[in-house]
């Protein structure tokens, strides 16, 4: 628990580190009209998908430093000797970073959604979907983050390792957004997104902990 509060403080106060992915998310999403044209029908076709990809990539951004900084300065070693299981550490760190970055991402999401011609009335649903999606992206990403924590140039490798694990979240989340945009039934894809996110939260701390224990050996 104290790990969690420490991480949360660090993530918030870390020189705008938490806000950076949010800015990236917004800027990357705003590029869409320049690429696909500002025609409303084009934006309605491309918008939800591009937004979801931007969300995935923004969630990937904080991953490189998720465990690396603590590994370098020995904090992870101290955690390992503290009697708290490494699984708990991985869970606390990922959760703290998700709160610091994932929740702001979800709050910004409706703005991008409306700019990309999504129906404003569905904004609450977009926030909910983005919360679930970013949670899934963060927790699956934490596996890649833990695996590459000991590497100097792990950033690109995280992407290569993690992106295949993002596929289910990508499919269900984008399907839910498209359903919401077109006024269709979004409940089923949304529940599947939630299922994938819960699966990620439940399993990834174990994989990440295994990788972290190797890294501090």
């Amino acid at each position, binding site marked *: 628990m104290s790990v969690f509060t420490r991480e949360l403080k660090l993530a918030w106060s870390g020189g705008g580190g938490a806000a950076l992915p949010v800015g990236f998310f917004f800027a990357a999403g705003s590029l869409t009209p320049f690429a696909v044209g500002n025609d409303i029908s084009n934006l309605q076709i491309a918008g939800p998908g591009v937004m979801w990809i931007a969300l995935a990539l923004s969630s990937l951004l904080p991953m490189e430093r998720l465990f690396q900084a603590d590994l370098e300065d020995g904090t992870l070693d101290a955690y390992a000797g503290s009697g708290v299981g490494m699984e708990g550490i991985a869970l606390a760190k990922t959760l703290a970073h998700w709160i610091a970055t994932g929740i702001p991402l979800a709050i910004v999401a409706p703005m991008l959604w409306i700019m990309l011609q999504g129906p404003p009335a569905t904004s609450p649903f977009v926030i909910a979907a983005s919360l679930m999606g970013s949670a899934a992206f963060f927790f699956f990403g934490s596996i890649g983050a833990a*695996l*590459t924590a000991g*590497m100097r140039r792990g950033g690109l490798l995280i992407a290569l390792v993690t992106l*295949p*694990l993002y596929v*289910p979240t990508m*499919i269900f989340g984008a399907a839910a957004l498209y359903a919401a945009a077109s006024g269709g039934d979004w409940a089923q894809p949304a529940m*599947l997104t939630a299922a994938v996110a819960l699966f990620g939260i439940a399993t990834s701390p174990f*994989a990440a902990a295994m990788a972290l224990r190797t890294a501090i050996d």
Partner: protein
Amino acid sequence: MAVMSFFANPHRFMAASKWFAWGFTVLGSAVIVLGICLGLFVVPPDAVQGDSARIMFVHVPAMWLSLFAYAFMAGASLISIVWRHALADVAAKSAAPVGAAVTAFGLITGSIWGYPTWGTWWEWGDARLVSVLILFFIYLGYIAIWQAMETPQKAARAAAILCLAGAVNLPIIHFSVNWFATLHQVSMNATAEFKYPMYVVALGYLALFGGLTLLNMRAEIMNTRAEMLAQRRQAAG
């Protein structure tokens, strides 16, 4: 279990695998050639797809092997994590390039088959096509992790964890892609006569996979030995 502990000693493995490695490679290649000859010259053309369906003789077994190779790697990774078996790491590492190559081969042959049959080189609507592409990416990530880590011990652990994470997620990925896909290509309604060269080629692939993996393993072990010798010489001055 007895077999596993027997081969925990690399010396025994090297002695035992010497003939198997080349034997499987040569045997596998010969069986593949035989199977292809059967498929090209003996079996009549498919009733619907004509001669273009003959690519199935090399394509379908490649897809089987791409899954088999990954399952093999996952099994080896599990053994490596649970028992810290030195040879299991080497086995998983050695199988990866073979698996990735056969997956790429399967994707390419599938694409070549798809053009005359579906009228497109690539069909995102087909679940199996897309799943296999993801599988290929997982192979690439696995190989990249081996190369990126500084010490072999850490690389082995990290790669094993990644391989198992991939194995756990593969069914979910497949399920989600399946859900996403709208166009399903049902498996071919081929007659038994049309199918048997496929099994012959599959056996050949399996033997070739075993042979190449063993050759890779041997090269890996020799490499480690050479490095140890070099270090020892350096230490001796």
